[in-house]
């Protein structure tokens, strides 16, 4: 039971972190693909002067394709006659970039800690079960059972635990996302589409897509099963040596 709870806790937090990182990355991508510089001109500036600045900027070849180009463009515009103020998304992009980096780094540390903790607890729980079945295992070996035959029931149980834990954690997280939809709609107002580029494919994040939820569940289940298999192999290898 303790092993299962730790596995569930690990999967729940890992899935929550995965969803958060996906959304933050998608949001960052959204902002990055829409770089914008706003120029305020003085009242005395004529329309011809404004067009002149625009034409010169176009002729210079400086386009706001990426947020990284924005400071240069802003500096250029500030130096132009008649320009009162120049604003761009520097702060938003920088904050998003910082936030995503912090979340990624914290998640990585947290993830490794959770992974190690769940493997240690699961391995201990399986070792305890093996100790309870010591006589049966000894008898099976004397009857000619292979190592895999002895490991099989522990592996199956681990895989089943991994699947159930991932299903439960995914269910809670999916339920939470659905119940938070009104809040997300207002928070992401004006953003009609968020996606995550994976190779040549754009995985739709927002509006919530079944494909994204499916990928989240499959990754969570695979992660859970991998932890369970690793812990079982470690425990049985230690005992059957």
């Amino acid at each position, binding site marked *: 039971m303790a092993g299962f709870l730790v596995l569930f806790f690990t999967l729940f937090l890992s899935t929550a972190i995965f969803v958060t990182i996906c959304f933050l990355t998608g949001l960052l991508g959204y902002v990055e693909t829409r770089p914008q510089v706003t120029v305020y001109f003085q009242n005395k500036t004529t329309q011809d002067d404004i067009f002149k600045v625009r034409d010169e900027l176009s002729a210079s070849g400086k386009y706001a394709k990426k947020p990284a180009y924005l400071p240069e463009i802003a500096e250029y515009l500030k130096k132009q006659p008649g320009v009162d103020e120049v604003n761009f998304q520097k702060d938003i992009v920088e904050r998003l970039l910082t936030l995503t980096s912090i979340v990624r780094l914290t998640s990585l540390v947290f993830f490794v800690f959770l992974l190690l903790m769940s493997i240690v607890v699961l391995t201990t729980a399986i070792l305890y079960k093996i100790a309870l079945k010591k006589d*049966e295992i000894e008898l*099976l070996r004397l*009857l*000619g059972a292979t190592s895999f035959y002895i490991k099989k029931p522990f592996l199956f149980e681990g895989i089943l635990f991994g699947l159930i834990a991932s299903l439960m954690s995914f269910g809670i997280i999916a339920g939470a996302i659905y119940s938070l939809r009104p809040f997300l709609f207002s928070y992401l107002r004006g953003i009609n589409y968020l996606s995550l580029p994976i190779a040549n494919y754009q995985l739709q994040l927002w509006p919530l897509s079944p494909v994204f939820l499916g990928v989240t569940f499959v990754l969570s289940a695979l992660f859970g099963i991998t932890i369970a298999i690793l812990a079982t192999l470690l425990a049985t290898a230690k005992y059957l040596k």
Partner: protein
Amino acid sequence: MIAFENVTKRFPLGNVALESVSFTVNDNDFVFLVGPSGAGKTTILRLIMHEYLPSSGNVTINDQVISSKSFRKIHELRRQIGVIFQDFKILPEKNVYENISLSLKVNKTPSSQIQQEVLKALSLVGLSKKERVFPSQLSAGELQRVAIARAIVGNRDIILADEPTGNLDPKTAWEIMKIFKKLEGRKTIIIATHNTDIVNSLQKRVILMKDGRLIKDMKKGGYEL
């Protein structure tokens, strides 16, 4: 055929369990291993089972040297051998049927055949209709019969029995020996025992051990020390 060739077994603390023991047991032979406690009888059975490796010498089964460290087909070897342990090794949480079927499951016997074989073995050991009974409801003699049934299912050619009558009263001990007699000529049977009555009465081949040495190998012997 089982062959011991100058087999010596020394344990890490230095005590010698077997000293240059050589003998052969042909297919379908019936052999008693006799001798006092510490004579090396159980060590011989454990060497055949590949539970131990000899310190020197060779153990060969069906022309295959099983005593080398490089021998890897341990589970295949053990599937040829049915063992009856002195402490029975019957799992208390499993019923008679489940205990016996373990021996077939590790042999990958199809499930359709398992029931047939278990019931046949139970009939042979005189425990028909007891397949759903749990070990706690059985007497020592009945537990020994379950252990024999488990050892003979699954086409195991060699039967090793370590003191199979050690915990039994004389009447039950004879009943157990009758089961072994039924198997005579069909399987190679090696019985390690202290039971002088049985050994003297049955007049089978006797290998006499003492202090780890083979003292006598008699074709139709009795228990003499």
